[in-house]
C-alpha cells in the first residue's frame, strides 16, 4: 500500500508529540508530587479528597474546641476546690460552735470567721476566666452571677450552659450553672427540717433527724408535743396523732417512716416542729449560722438545734460539690479521650488523602524512564529512515 511522504512524516511527528506530552505530564506529577491536580484527572477521587480534607479540618477544629473546654473546666475545678475548702472550714467552725459552754463573745468570734468564709465562698462562686467571663453564670456570664444585698445572696445568672462540640458526634457542657452548684440545695436533712418551739421552757434540743423508710414518709408539718417531761405525742397538720410514747433523752422518736432524737429535759407543753424541707443555698446556710451564733436571745436548745440543722445543710452542700467535681472530672476525661481519638482519625484521614492525591514516586519514576526510552527510540528510528529516498541513488 503506498504511503505518501507527507503522511509518513506527519504520523511520525504526531507520535513523537504524543510521547512528548505524556513525558511532560509525568514530569509535572513528579515535580508537584500530586497525581490528582484537577477534578478532570479523577472526579470521584477529587470529591473524596475534598470531603476528607473537610473532615480533617473539622477534626482539628474540634480538638481546638476541646482545648478551650479543658481550660474552662480546669478553672471550674479550682473554684470548686476553693469552695469545698471554705465550706469544710465552715463546718469545723459550726461543730466548734455547737458547745453550750461557749460564751456569747466566743460565738461571735466564730461568727466573724464564718463571715470571712462566706466572702471566700462568694468570690469562688463569682470566679472569672482569662476573658473576664464568669464561670458559674451559665449563658449570662458577662456580669457577676451572685449578688449580695445585705446578708442574702441571690443568683442572677441563667439556667443553661453552652454545649461545645469536641468530636464528630460529641458535645460537652462547658460548665455548670451557679444555681445547680451553690443554690437550690435541700434544707435540713434533705427531706425535712426540725425546730424548737419558741415558747419552750425546757432545755431539750432536737437533732436534724432522718428518713428511715422513704416509702412510709408522708410529707407534712408535724408537731411533737410533750404533755409531760416523759410523755410525747406527734400530730400531723390535721391534728391526727401519728406517734406517741414515753420519752427518754437521746432515744429515737419514730413516726411515718421518719425518726428524730430529742436530748435534754423538755417541760410540759414544749413543742418541736418537723416540716418538709424547702430550698437553701450555701450562702443562706452560712448566713443562718452566723445569725444563730451572733444571737443573744436564743436559748441553748434553739442554738444547738439550729447549728445541727446548719451542719446537715453544709453536708448536703459538700456532697453536691463532690458530685459536681466528679461530673467535671468526667467531662475532662471525655475531652481527653476525644482528643486521642481525633489523633487516630486524623492520621487515617491524612493517609487516605495521600493515597488518593499524592504521586507514587517509584511508579512515576519507572514510568518516566520507560517513556523516555520510547521517545528516544521513536526519534532515532525516525532519523535513520527519514532521509531514505530513491533520489539519493539517481546520479
Amino acid at each position, binding site marked *: 500500500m503506498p504511503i505518501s*511522504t507527507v503522511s509518513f512524516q506527519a504520523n511520525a511527528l504526531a507520535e513523537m508529540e504524543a510521547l512528548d506530552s505524556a513525558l511532560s505530564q509525568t514530569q509535572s506529577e513528579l515535580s508537584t508530587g500530586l497525581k*490528582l491536580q*484537577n477534578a478532570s484527572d479523577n472526579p470521584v477521587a*477529587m470529591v473524596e479528597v475534598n*470531603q476528607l480534607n473537610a473532615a480533617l479540618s473539622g477534626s482539628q477544629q*474540634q480538638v481546638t474546641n476541646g482545648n478551650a473546654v479543658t481550660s474552662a473546666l480546669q478553672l471550674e475545678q479550682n473554684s470548686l476546690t476553693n469552695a469545698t475548702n471554705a465550706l469544710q472550714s465552715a463546718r469545723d467552725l459550726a461543730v466548734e460552735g455547737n458547745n453550750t459552754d461557749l460564751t456569747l463573745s466566743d460565738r461571735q468570734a466564730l461568727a466573724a470567721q464564718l463571715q470571712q468564709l462566706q466572702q471566700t465562698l462568694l468570690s469562688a462562686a463569682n470566679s472569672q476566666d482569662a476573658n473576664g467571663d464568669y464561670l458559674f453564670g451559665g*449563658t449570662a456570664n458577662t456580669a457577676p452571677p451572685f449578688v449580695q444585698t445585705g446578708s442574702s445572696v441571690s443568683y442572677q445568672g441563667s439556667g*443553661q450552659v453552652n454545649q461545645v462540640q469536641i468530636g464528630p458526634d460529641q458535645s460537652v457542657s462547658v460548665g455548670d450553672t451557679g444555681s445547680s452548684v451553690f443554690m437550690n440545695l435541700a434544707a435540713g436533712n434533705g427531706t425535712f427540717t426540725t425546730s424548737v418551739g419558741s415558747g419552750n421552757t425546757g432545755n431539750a434540743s432536737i437533732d436534724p433527724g432522718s428518713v428511715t423508710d422513704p416509702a412510709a414518709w408522708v410529707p407534712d408539718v408535724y408537731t411533737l408535743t410533750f404533755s409531760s417531761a416523759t410523755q410525747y405525742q406527734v400530730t400531723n397538720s390535721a391534728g391526727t396523732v401519728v406517734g406517741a410514747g414515753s420519752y427518754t433523752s437521746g432515744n429515737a422518736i419514730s413516726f411515718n417512716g421518719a425518726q428524730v432524737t430529742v436530748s435534754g429535759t423538755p417541760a410540759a407543753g414544749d413543742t418541736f416542729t418537723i416540716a418538709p424541707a424547702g430550698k437553701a443555698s450555701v450562702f443562706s446556710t452560712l448566713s443562718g449560722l452566723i445569725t444563730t451564733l451572733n444571737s443573744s436571745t436564743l436559748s441553748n436548745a434553739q442554738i444547738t438545734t439550729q447549728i445541727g440543722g446548719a451542719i446537715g445543710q453544709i453536708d448536703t452542700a459538700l456532697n453536691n460539690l463532690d458530685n459536681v467535681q466528679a461530673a467535671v472530672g468526667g467531662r475532662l476525661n471525655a475531652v481527653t479521650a476525644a482528643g486521642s481519638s481525633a489523633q487516630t482519625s486524623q492520621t487515617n484521614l491524612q493517609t487516605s488523602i495521600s493515597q488518593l492525591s499524592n504521586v507514587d514516586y517509584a511508579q512515576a519514576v519507572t514510568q518516566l524512564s520507560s517513556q523516555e526510552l520510547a521517545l528516544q527510540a521513536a526519534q532515532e528510528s525516525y532519523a535513520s529512515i527519514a532521509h531514505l529516498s*530513491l533520489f539519493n541513488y539517481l546520479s
Partner: protein
Amino acid sequence: MADLLNTSVSGLLAFQQALDVTSNNIANSATPGYSVETANLVPEPGQATAAGYVGSGVEVDGITRAYDELLAQQVRSSQASYSSLNTLATQASQVDNLLSSSSSGLTSSLQSFVNALQTLSSSPDSSGARQALLSEAQALTQQLTGYDGQITQYGGQLEQQIGTDVTQINSLAGGIASLNTQIANDLAGSGNAPNQLMDQRDTLLDQLSQYVSVSTATQPNGMLDVYIGSGQALVTGGTPQQLSTIPSLYNASVLDIGLASGGGTADVTSEISGGDLGGLLSARSQVLDPAQNALGQISVALATIVNQQQASGMDATGAAGQPMFNVGGVQTLGASTNTGSATLAVTRTDISALTSDDYTLRYQGGAWTLEDATTGQSIAMTGNGTSANPFQAAGLSIVVSGTPGAGDSFLLQPTATATAGLSVALTNPSQIAAASLAQTAAGADNTGNGTISAATITNPSSWVPDTYTLAFTSASQYQVTNSGGALVASGIYSAGQPITFNGAAVTVSGAPAAGDTFTVTPSTAADAGDNTNVVALMNALGANTLNGGTTSLSGAANDLVAQIGTVTQQAQSSATAEQSVNQDAATARSNLSGVNLDQQAAQMLQFEQAYQAMAQMIQTSSQTFNSLITAITDG
C-alpha cells in the same frame, strides 16, 4: 516512415507531458491539500493496413488527480467531531481548573466558615471570634463571586469567539462559492477538470470542517453545494448564504446563530453541531450556564440558611439577628417577540425545591404554563398568579400583573444572577446572633431528674416573646402556659422529643416528676454568652437542605466540582479518541492523494528512459529515410 516519425513524435510529446506532471507532483510533494496527478496515457487509434491495424502512437488523454470522495468526507466529519470535542474540552477545562483545588476550593472555604463558627461556639461573646466569623463570611463571599465573575468572563470570551467563527465561516463560504463559479466555467470551457482549483476548494472545505460539521453534494456542472450542521444550506452553487450572529430570544447579550434563507434570517442555533462553533455552543449549554446556575444555587442556600438562623437568634446588643448576606434575586427575561404588557414578580420560597435549571413561563390559550427550559418537561403550578394566590412551583412563587399577549413567554433564571449579588450585609461583629431568642431553666423546687435543653426558635415569625412555664402534671403529661396562664401546648411526654409552642422548641430528657416545672424566658443582652444559635447554624449548614433533602451545602459544592470534572474528562478522552480517528482518516486520504517521492522518482526514471528511447527512435526514422534517399540517389 511518416507513421514511424509521427508515432515517435507523439511518444516524445506524451512523455514530455508525463514528465511535466511528474515534475509538478514532486514540486508539490509538500503542499498541503495537493492531490497527486497522473497523466492518462492512451494509445492513438490504429491505422488499417494490409498486415493488420497498426497503432499510431500515444497521447495524453487527460490529467486525473487521485481523489476519493468517501475518504475526504471521513476526514472532514472526523475533523468536525474532533474540533468540537477539543473546544468543549478546552472550555470545560478552564472551569475545571478554576474549581479544582482541594486545599483552597469551595469546600475548603465552607469548612473554614464552619470552623470559625466552632471557635465562636466556645466563646460567643468574644469580639475577636465574632470578627473572625465576619472575615470568613467575607472570604467565602469573595471566592463565590470570584468564581462567578470568572465564568461570566469566560462566557463573554465565548460569545466573541462565536462571532469570530461566524466571520471565518462566511469568508470560507465566499471562497468556496467563487471557486465553484470558476470550476464550472473552466469545466464547461475546456471539458477538463481544473484539478488545481478543485484542490483549493477541497482545502477550503477542510478548513470549514474545523469550524462546523460539513456535508456536500456535487452538481453535474462541477459545482459543490455545501451544507452545515444538520443540513442547512451554506453554499448553493456560486452563491454563499450569509451566516450571522443574532441576539437570542430572551437575552440580547447571548448570541444565537442565524442563517440567511428565503429573504429572511432563520435561527439555526439548534441545527449547528460539530466544529469549533458546535463545541462553543455545547460548552455554553453544558458547562458555563450550568456551572453558573449551580454556583448560584449554593449562594442562595448559604444566604438563606444563615439569614434564617440569624432571625432565630439574638445579637450581642439584645436585638433579634439581622440578615448576614445579601444575595441576587431571580432573573426574569421577557422574549423579544412579546406583544403584551405582563410583568412578573418572582421570589424563591423553598431552597429544598430549588434546582439549577432555568424555566420558561408561557401564556398560551388563555393560560400560563411552566416548563423546564433545559429538558422541556412541563412543570405543574399551583395558584392563579395573583399576589394573594401566587403560582407556586419548583421552589418559586410567581405573581403576574399586566396583560400578556397570546404566545408571550418569559425565561425565569432562579439562580443565575444570585452569586453576582452576594455580599456580606453585617458590618459590626456585635450583629452576629450567637444566642437563642429564649433561655431555659429548671424550676428550683423540682424533685424529678428531668433536664431541659436550650430553646431554639424554629419559626421566628410565630415566636411570641413571653415567659412560658412548662409544667409536668404527671410524669408523662405536660402543659405549657404563657405568663397570663393561657394554655399554648400540651401533650404526652416522651424523653428527647421536641416540645413546640409559639415557634419555639425545647427538648426534655430524663424523668421529671409530677409538679416539676421548667421556664422558657426571652433572652436579654445579659445572655450574650449563649451559643445555642451558633450550634443551630452549624447543624443547619451540615444538614441535607437541598435537592429535596438529599444534599448538604458542601455536598452541592462537591457535586459541582465532580460534574465539571466529569464533563472535562469525558470531553478530553473523547477528543483524544476522535483525534486518532481523524489522523487515521487523514493518513488514508494522504496515502491515496499524497505524493510518494520514491514512486515519483521511479516514474521519472521510466518516462526519462522512454523519452530517450523515443528520441533514439526518431534518429532511427531519420536514418532509415536517409538510407532510402541514398539508395535512390546512388542507384
